[in-house]
Every structure is written in structure tokens, then in C-alpha cells.
């Protein structure tokens, strides 16, 4: 094996490419050649590093540079790589917080803790050896040699891990249900159909650390007694699809997938399924229909997938982020996991923070951090300098939280007791110059388009809400429109067939509670 004195980990995901990552890489390669240090320094391309602009981490120092332009490269190479003097002006903000993951020296944005994103950005995602070197597949080996399936389920149950896809169902319980259902054939599905506008946490995990997902699926399969798994990836995520496919192939070659894994009786295979660009397919039963090759329309529940899922067999559907927690829980124990976060809401949560803020990107924070802390300490306030008006948390179907409620803590219990959701983990900050009606119109348009059409409340309701919002946005609304919309929202919440219609009304109900006056500005004078 070749020895390199430094590794440069370069984020090459879509936003980085947009910000000019290709130019940076080319210049870097040229510079290394010019200085004749190509054999000493290795460039590793990875997914997003979770920072804004073109970013890289240089190891062994673990120094993060962000917002790099091709013209900065010369200085970086001469100063850092040749003379060993880090270039201060390009370095990411230093953190005072001690990182709890041992062995990590890199400095994260303030207040973060990384479990799920532990490896993203510190290993070459296309090289299985690097994953193995970071204790990869150790958890799988451990459970296969030391634990019975029941014990694995107990570990996950004790960890109090809850689903990270939005519904926050206890993962261990879900596994137990499937374990208890007798069947000769069971399935594990990884839900990677990340369709919520503004969310890209699952993409980052798949691009930066695909083996963690595969290992977790294998552990899950062993626990519930499945031997076949599917990863359902959004068709648009080209890089994720390639990475996952390569990772599966490599894992098969190393016998982490396939027959008699680790010389045990356990066999497991994974297939990749491509999504067709339908938002509703993030709903687990719609996703199952889609894997079966049908229109992605949701099924009536119960029976739930743990009893009757894919091809009528017991099936686990877990989100990418949920799964990525599993190997760490197995290795470090459930008590370690419970210590992170707050009571009833263990572990960390990955959020995508966006909108009018200074530090955009992906963060992983312990459960229980408040929205205000995220906004002030991590996002560093609004970029435009304007006052922030509200945050839209959890994606389009999430909740609108006005600025004066920013004290709310972002853990599952607090959110649930206030009737809120962290949904897919996106937090979009909107400043005061955006009119609420304009904003809601774009949200309404999305749902009108994405409703699958199976049930009437959602199909017609999303369409009518869009009509109301269009009228209000043109200032041609009637006073009665808002009360009618309120009634409509309640009907949809109660009568829609699946989560899409039930949750689609959340932002509108919130807006009518907190911004009714502003919405009224869309009423044409004299119209009742």
C-alpha cells in the first residue's frame, strides 16, 4: 500500500460542484504536480462535508477549509502542504466544544456532536478498507458472533432510538414486531427517497458513508430474520446511487453481504431500487407498492408493514439516518447512546439548515438543543441582516414557528407535546421581507402537485388550498376564505388516507394561528 503524508478530503457533491469544486480540484492537481508532491499527497473526493461553499479537510491535522476558490489553492499548497502552516483566513470557525467522538480532531461548527456523520468527510466513501479501519463492520461481526437476534433487538430497544424519518416511532419496537411475526421470508427496506424540499441529510450519509447504511441493514436483517434487503433511493440522487451500488459490490466481495456472512448461518443480500420522483413514495406503504413495481399509492393501515409489507411479507422500513445510528449503538452500547440527548429523546439529530442565514449546511446536534441556539450559535443569524420572521421546520409538511417561539427545544418529546414535528430535519429560516402569502403559495403548489390522487380530501384539498393562496397572494381574497381554509385543513387532517394529506395542512394551520393578520392583507377591500 502506498503511503501518503497528507490526505485532502474534498467535498464534491452537487452544491459544492455548483460552488466551483471542479475548478478547485483541477487547480489543486495542477499545483501538486508543479510542486512535485503528487506522490506525497492524496486527494479523496467525497460527498458534502456539511459546510457552505467548496470545502476540504486536510489530514492528519484535521483542519477544515471552507469557501475555497481556485485562486486560494496556490497559497494553501505552499503554506499548508509544503511549509506546514495552516492558512488561517480560510479555516472554518473553531469550536470550543469538545468533540465526544474520540480520535476526532477536526473542528466542527459550534455545538455539534457527530455519530451519524462520524465518517462522512473523514474517509474515502468508495474505499471499503477505510470504512473497516474506522471499526466498520465490527458491529455486524459482533452481533453475529456474540448476540442472539433477540439480544440485538433489546440493545436497540434500550437505546430508545426513534425513527428519524418524521414519525419518530421507536425503532426497537418496530424490529420486535417484525421479529415476532412468523414468516419464512422477511424484508428490510432502507427508505432513501428523500423528497422533502430542502432536505439532503440522507444524501450526505449515503454519499459520505454508504457502508454504515449497509452494515446497519445487515444487523437489522439478522435481528428480525430477513435475508433480503432493498434500498429505495430517489432517482435524482445519481451520486448516491452509484456510491451505494459500489459499496454493495465491495461488501459482497468481502463477504459482509452474501452467503454465510462471517462464517455464520446468516445470509443477506441487498438490491437498489430507484424512485421515480414521487413525494408520496416516502410514505412506507407507498414505497412498498413502488418496489413491487406499481403506482406508489399508500395502502390502508393496519396491517402495518412489520406484519404484512413487501409482497405480503413482514417488512421493516427504516430511514437512512435511523439506520446509520445502529452500528454505533451496537459498538458503544445503549447507555452511551441514551446519555446523548435528553430523556425520551436519545441520541443526536441531523438537521439541514437553510434560508436567510450566514452558515448554511448540515449539522448534527444532540437532541434538546433549542431553535434559538441553532439560529444564533450555529446559523449565526440572518445573512441579509434583516429580522428573522419564522422558521419552517421539518420540511414542507412541517411547522411554521414564529420568531417569538424560538425558545422551543428541538427534541421529540417537546415537539410532540407542542404538536410539532421535526419531520425530515430541515430548518428553513425566512426573514421578514418575504410575505407569508407568497411563501404559503409555493408550499401549496408543491402539495397540489405531489398529492397522489388516491383519496378525495387530499387530492381536492391540496388543490383548493392552492386556489385560496393564489387568490390571497394576488390580494383578491375574501374575508371568509381564511375561515373556510381553516375548516378545510381540519377535514384534511382528519380524513386524509395517509400522512401526506394529514401533514400537508400543518404550515397553513400554523400560519393562520401566528400570521392571520398578515394573511388578511390578501383580502380585497370590501369582500366578505
Amino acid at each position, binding site marked *: 500500500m502506498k503511503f501518503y503524508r497528507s490526505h485532502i478530503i474534498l467535498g464534491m457533491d452537487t*452544491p459544492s460542484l455548483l460552488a466551483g469544486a471542479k475548478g478547485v480540484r483541477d487547480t489543486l492537481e495542477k499545483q501538486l504536480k508543479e510542486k512535485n508532491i503528487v506522490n506525497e499527497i492524496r486527494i479523496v473526493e467525497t460527498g458534502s462535508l456539511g459546510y457552505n461553499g467548496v470545502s476540504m479537510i486536510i489530514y492528519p491535522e484535521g483542519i477544515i477549509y471552507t469557501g475555497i476558490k481556485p485562486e486560494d489553492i496556490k497559497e494553501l499548497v505552499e503554506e499548508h502542504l509544503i511549509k506546514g502552516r495552516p492558512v488561517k483566513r480560510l479555516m472554518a470557525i473553531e469550536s470550543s466544544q469538545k468533540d465526544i467522538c474520540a480520535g476526532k480532531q477536526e473542528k466542527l461548527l459550534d455545538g455539534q456532536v457527530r455519530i451519524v456523520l462520524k465518517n462522512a468527510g473523514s474517509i474515502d466513501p468508495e474505499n471499503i478498507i477505510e470504512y473497516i479501519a474506522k471499526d466498520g463492520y465490527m458491529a455486524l461481526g459482533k452481533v453475529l458472533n456474540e448476540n442472539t437476534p433477540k439480544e440485538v433487538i433489546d440493545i436497540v430497544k434500550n437505546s430508545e432510538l426513534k425513527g428519524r424519518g418524521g414519525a419518530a416511532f421507536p425503532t426497537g419496537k418496530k424490529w420486535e414486531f417484525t421479529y415476532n411475526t412468523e414468516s419464512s421470508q422477511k424484508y428490510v427496506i432502507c427508505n432513501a427517497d428523500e*423528497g422533502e424540499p*430542502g432536505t439532503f441529510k440522507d444524501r450526505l450519509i449515503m454519499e459520505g458513508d454508504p457502508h454504515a447504511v449497509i452494515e446497519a441493514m445487515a444487523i437489522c436483517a439478522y435481528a428480525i430474520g430477513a435475508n433480503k434487503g432493498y434500498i429505495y433511493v430517489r432517482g435524482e440522487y445519481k451520486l448516491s446511487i452509484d456510491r451505494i451500488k459500489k459499496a454493495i459490490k465491495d461488501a459482497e466481495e468481502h463477504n459482509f453481504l452474501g452467503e454465510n456472512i462471517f462464517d455464520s448461518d446468516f445470509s443477506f443480500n441487498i438490491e437498489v*431500487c430507484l424512485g*421515480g420522483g414521487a413525494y408520496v413514495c416516502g410514505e412506507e406503504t407507498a414505497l412498498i407498492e413502488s418496489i413491487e*413495481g406499481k403506482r406508489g399509492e399508500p395502502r390502508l393501515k393496519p396491517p402495518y408493514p412489520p406484519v404484512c409489507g413487501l409482497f405480503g411479507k413482514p417488512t421493516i422500513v427504516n430511514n437512512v439516518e435511523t439506520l446509520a445510528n445502529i452500528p454505533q449503538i451496537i459498538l458503544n452500547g445503549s447507555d452511551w447512546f441514551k446519555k446523548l440527548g435528553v430523556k425520551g429523546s436519545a441520541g443526536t439529530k441531523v438537521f439541514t439548515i437553510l434560508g436567510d442565514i450566514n452558515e448554511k449546511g448540515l449539522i448534527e446536534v444532540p437532541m434538546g438543543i433549542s431553535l434559538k441556539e441553532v439560529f444564533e450559535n450555529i446559523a449565526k443569524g440572518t445573512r441579509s441582516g434583516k429580522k428573522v420572521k419564522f422558521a419552517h421546520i421539518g420540511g414542507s409538511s412541517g411547522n411554521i414557528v414564529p420568531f417569538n417561539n424560538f425558545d422551543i427545544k428541538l427534541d421529540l418529546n417537546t415537539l410532540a407535546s407542542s404538536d410539532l414535528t421535526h419531520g425530515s430535519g430541515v430548518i428553513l429560516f425566512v426573514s421578514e421581507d418575504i410575505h407569508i402569502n407568497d*411563501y404559503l403559495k409555493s408550499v401549496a403548489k408543491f402539495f397540489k402537485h405531489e398529492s397522489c390522487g388516491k383519496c378525495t380530501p387530499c387530492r381536492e384539498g391540496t388543490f383548493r388550498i392552492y386556489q385560496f393562496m393564489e387568490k390571497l397572494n394576488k390580494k383578491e381574497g375574501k374575508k371568509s376564505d381564511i375561515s373556510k381554509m381553516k375548516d378545510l385543513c381540519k377535514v384534511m387532517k382528519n380524513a386524509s388516507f395517509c400522512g401526506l394529506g394529514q401533514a400537508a395542512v400543518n404550515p397553513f394551520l400554523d400560519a393562520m394561528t401566528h400570521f392571520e393578520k398578515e394573511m388578511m392583507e390578501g383580502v380585497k377591500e370590501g369582500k366578505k
Partner: protein
Amino acid sequence: MACECGNCIDYSVLDRIVEESRGKEGILINVLHSVQEHYGALTPDIQKRISDGLNIPLSQVYGTVTFYHFFTMVPKGKYVIKICTGTACYVRGANKLVENFVDKLGIEVGQTTNDGLFSLETVRCVGACSLAPVVTINDVDIYKRVSPKEIDGIIAGYRQKEAE
């Protein structure tokens, strides 16, 4: 073997894809992905052939094709322009971009220009919200923070590439 008249479509690739997938459970969507990638569109004839080959009712094939945005029944232009209209792009003026592209190309969203060069589409989030509004062309060329003023230049660039 392909017919040599030049008008017939060579179905050998389709047949091979179907052959490899026959009998596997839930294979339809993956087949549709592969076939569309090769033929550019899932025309009624193609759907009929898939239906026969996989022994799946044509109604189910058609229902699936029309359900997902990703599948198309009419061939798309050489350059597929996708404008992101996700929330973040919307608040930063994606709608203005759509209007301008419609105006400049003389086609509506979902249509293809007569010369077969451009198709215009809107997509939900491409996951690059910090660079909104975003326009992608054939998913390869990506334009960030696009302003309506840049549109002429973008289109002209591809026209010129073709002329050469």
C-alpha cells in the same frame, strides 16, 4: 435483428432488458428506468412490448409510467432544462426564471422545442438550496443563483454548441 428501413425501432436492447428481468418480483420500475434511459421515452409501443414481455397487464404498465414524474411518453429534447421550484428556489425567484424560459423558448413547461433541442421542466428540490435559484441541464451542467438576465446566454451557448 434491427430492420434496415430506418423507420423501425430496434427493440433488441428492450428485449434483452426484459429477458434479464423476467420472473423477478417487482421488477417493473427498474425495467422502465433502463428502457427509458436507452430509448429516451416510453412510447405506447414500447409499453406494449414491456407488458407482453414481463406478462404484466398494460394497464399496470401505463398506470405506473404516468404516476412517476421521472417517466415520459414523448421523447425529450437533446438538452433538458430543469428549473428547481423547491421552496428555497421559489423564494429567490424561480418563478421569474420559468416565465423567462417559457418566453425565450416559445414552449410551455413539459414541452419540447420543434427542433428537438430543448425540453423545459420544473423539478422539486435538487438539494442545493444554498445556491438558489438553480437550473440544471441534462443533470450535468448546473447553474447557480441564476438571474433572468443570464438566460439568453445559457440558451445561446447550447445553440452554438450544436451549430459547431
